[in-house]
């Protein structure tokens, strides 16, 4: 049985090394060369920042780093002691806590330098408040991208997104988001002193398409291989390292290297968990404070996590063909992220389709403790999966807050579930 904690792919090690070096370079550029950078929500268009040479750090990525290094509890305790109640979202605010309570402990990798700009889409009700507080704590500017609500949600969105993306988003929403992105470009141009060339944006989005096409091929390899060739955690490491710098030469090259390694493993019959008996999917954001959870059932039950949204959402959520108006294409991707991933009917029908494509036996669905808006739509998803014949186990937990997480109890619950409903 493969070592549960060891990385099985060379690409994973390369991805981790790249991220660490990227962040070290960022700190050097900011401190030594006074280069501006931005702190942003994961769903903003990173391409605009990169093209205007204002590097962007993802709030969710930073929160995951803190959680993975087991540093979240100290920051979250400080936040609670300061009067922020425990029902408030911890995922989106952990980065803020690491800034406001910076004296609590030494942050990972030297910590975040002061950004020139913060940028967030106003999806959940808390985002405006968290980012306003964070911007105040840094003394930095905040740029907000408001989130108009969707009234029309045509079925099977993932089939429309690539070629018929104008049909996915109502015209008034598309125009509003595109206009807001134009304003963002104006701010970034003012900060960087550079001009955004539309042709450069179009080329970057074409590169993003190529990268996501590679991920699509990886997804097919994983879905169709007799046994899953790459662990879900390593899928996430490789995908997210590239998504944060998507459309760059490194990202495309790394996506291809990842693909080639997975393909080689499939051709050689190498499985992440040889003799797999149960194929699992994880629905929700990752348990960043306990990623060992995802390999905990391999040895005992030959149960292996095959799917998470992180790889699958790349090709289905990002590819946009027909780039004559690249800003509109970018806006069409940006406008409905939350609806794709959380809300009825879009989230449930996509996840069921993914489960079928990946021959999933059982789904573990996160019931987030504090990310309440991300918890909406969950009952629709759970019921749709069960109706499709896929056993569902809800897992209550927080993606960054380990304080109330009983790792042993959670593993015992999953094992009982596997024995009772999945592995006959």
């Amino acid at each position, binding site marked *: 049985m493969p070592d549960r904690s060891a990385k099985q792919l060379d690409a994973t090690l390369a991805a981790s090394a790249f991220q660490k070096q990227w962040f070290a370079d960022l700190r050097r550029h900011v401190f030594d060369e006074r280069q501006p950078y931005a702190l942003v929500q994961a769903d903003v268009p990173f391409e605009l920042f990169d093209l205007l040479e204002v590097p962007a750090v993802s709030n969710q990525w930073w929160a995951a780093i803190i959680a993975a290094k087991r540093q979240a509890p100290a920051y979250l305790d400080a936040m609670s002691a*300061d*009067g*922020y*109640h425990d*029902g*408030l*979202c911890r995922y989106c605010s952990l980065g803020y806590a690491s800034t406001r309570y910076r004296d609590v402990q030494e942050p990972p990798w030297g910590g975040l330098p002061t950004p020139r700009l913060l940028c967030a889409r*106003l*999806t*959940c*009700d*808390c985002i*405006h*408040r*968290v980012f*306003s*507080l964070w911007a105040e704590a840094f003394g930095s500017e905040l740029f*907000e*991208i*408001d989130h*108009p*609500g*969707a*009234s029309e*949600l045509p079925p099977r969105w993932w089939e429309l997104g690539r070629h018929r993306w104008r049909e996915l988003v109502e015209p*008034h929403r598309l125009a*509003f988001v595109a*206009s*807001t992105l134009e*304003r963002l470009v104006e701010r970034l141009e003012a900060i960087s002193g550079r001009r955004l060339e539309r042709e450069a944006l179009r080329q970057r989005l074409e590169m993003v398409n190529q990268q996501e096409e590679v991920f699509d091929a990886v997804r097919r390899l994983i879905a169709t291989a007799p046994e899953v060739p790459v662990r879900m955690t390593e899928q996430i490491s490789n995908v997210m390292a590239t998504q944060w710098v998507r459309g760059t030469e490194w990202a495309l090259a790394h996506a291809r290297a990842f693909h080639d390694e997975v393909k080689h493993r499939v051709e050689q019959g190498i499985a992440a968990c040889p003799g797999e008996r149960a194929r699992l999917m994880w629905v929700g954001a990752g348990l960043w404070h306990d990623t060992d959870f995802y390999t905990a059932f391999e040895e005992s039950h030959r149960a292996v996590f095959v799917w998470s949204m992180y790889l699958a959402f790349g090709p289905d959520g990002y590819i946009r063909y027909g780039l004559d108006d690249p800003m509109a294409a970018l806006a069409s991707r940006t406008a409905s992220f939350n*609806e794709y991933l959380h*809300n*009825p*009917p879009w989230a449930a029908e996509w996840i069921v389709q993914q489960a079928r494509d990946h021959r999933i036996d059982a789904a573990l669905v996160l*019931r987030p403790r504090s990310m*309440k*808006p991300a*918890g*909406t*739509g*969950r*009952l*629709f998803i759970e019921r749709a999966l069960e109706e499709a014949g896929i056993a569902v186990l809800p897992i209550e937990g927080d993606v960054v807050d380990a304080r109330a997480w009983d790792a042993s109890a959670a593993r015992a619950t999953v094992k009982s579930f596997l024995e009772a409903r999945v592995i006959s």
Partner: protein
Amino acid sequence: MNAVISWPSVPVEIVRAAGLRPIFVRSGPEGTAATPVADEHLEPGIFPGRLRHLVDAALNGRLDNAACIILPRTSDPDYKTFLYLREFQRRGSARSLPPTILFDLLQSEGPDVRAYDAERMKALFEELSSASGRRASLDDLRVEIARTNAARSAVRRLVALRHVVPRIKGSEVLPLLSAFWQLPPNDYVQLAAEAADDIAQRPPLDGPRVLLAGAPVDGSALHAEIESHGAIVVEEVGPWGSGAAGDDVDSVGDPLLALADKYRRDASGPRTPVGAMRDSISRMLIGIDAVVVSLPVEDTAFGWDYPALRDLLQTRRIPHACLRGDLSDHDRLNTLIGAAEARHA
């Protein structure tokens, strides 16, 4: 014909101009009435009582005769409820539900928001006219704006009778103020004037003055609880009390743009910009002896404002209590009002 509305950030002027009667869904007297059918579909701890009531009524067929259901984008749970109701209709579990409309009012301060909101106001006007079958004109809308402005004036007179020298308790005046949203404006003007004439004859009330901050409450139960300790709630955050009226809507220019400006600025909820909320509370604190901060279990937004509010209150030496979950914490309220009485004296 009734338009069932989930929160008063939907312009009643447009609803009435379209020939519909606005009916607002609220939590009920104690906010705890059972909603068993809704509870099967709504995740716990996310949706406030008013939305659970709305979904329960929708799935039980109690809204089938309404002309439409309107949910504003001014909170995430309202938006999600819109998506859920649409899904129930699509899946056939609420086949006879009337048209469900999202009123996509944005409240951020970006330069494109104003025009977007005006456009959404126009779309709402057209959708409601379609739902009612009455083709209202912009002049019809101007008439409704003028009528509603008169009702706002009546609200302001009532509000003046609870400030500075209060002559009516908060628990008593809240129903009078919140009726602004539902009564026909002409009726409201008359009834509110009669009430104000009566209240003006009353002697001033003694007792510490309390501001109710945090998440807006849509009933008077917490007011009554606070006032059972001898205090008087003279102000609260939210649209159901002193905030019901606000300033008049400009009736001279483009009525849709004027309504967009008014409701974007005055809509009170979790997406109200933090700067506007801070300014508003800072103004409310004048003459206040104590503050009760209400943070119900489903709160995702107002809790972020609490530490800054606490620091402000400490600076101004105003005692406060933060009620989380259990909004009838008798002992804490007793202690708070004791401190407020000392300050009031």
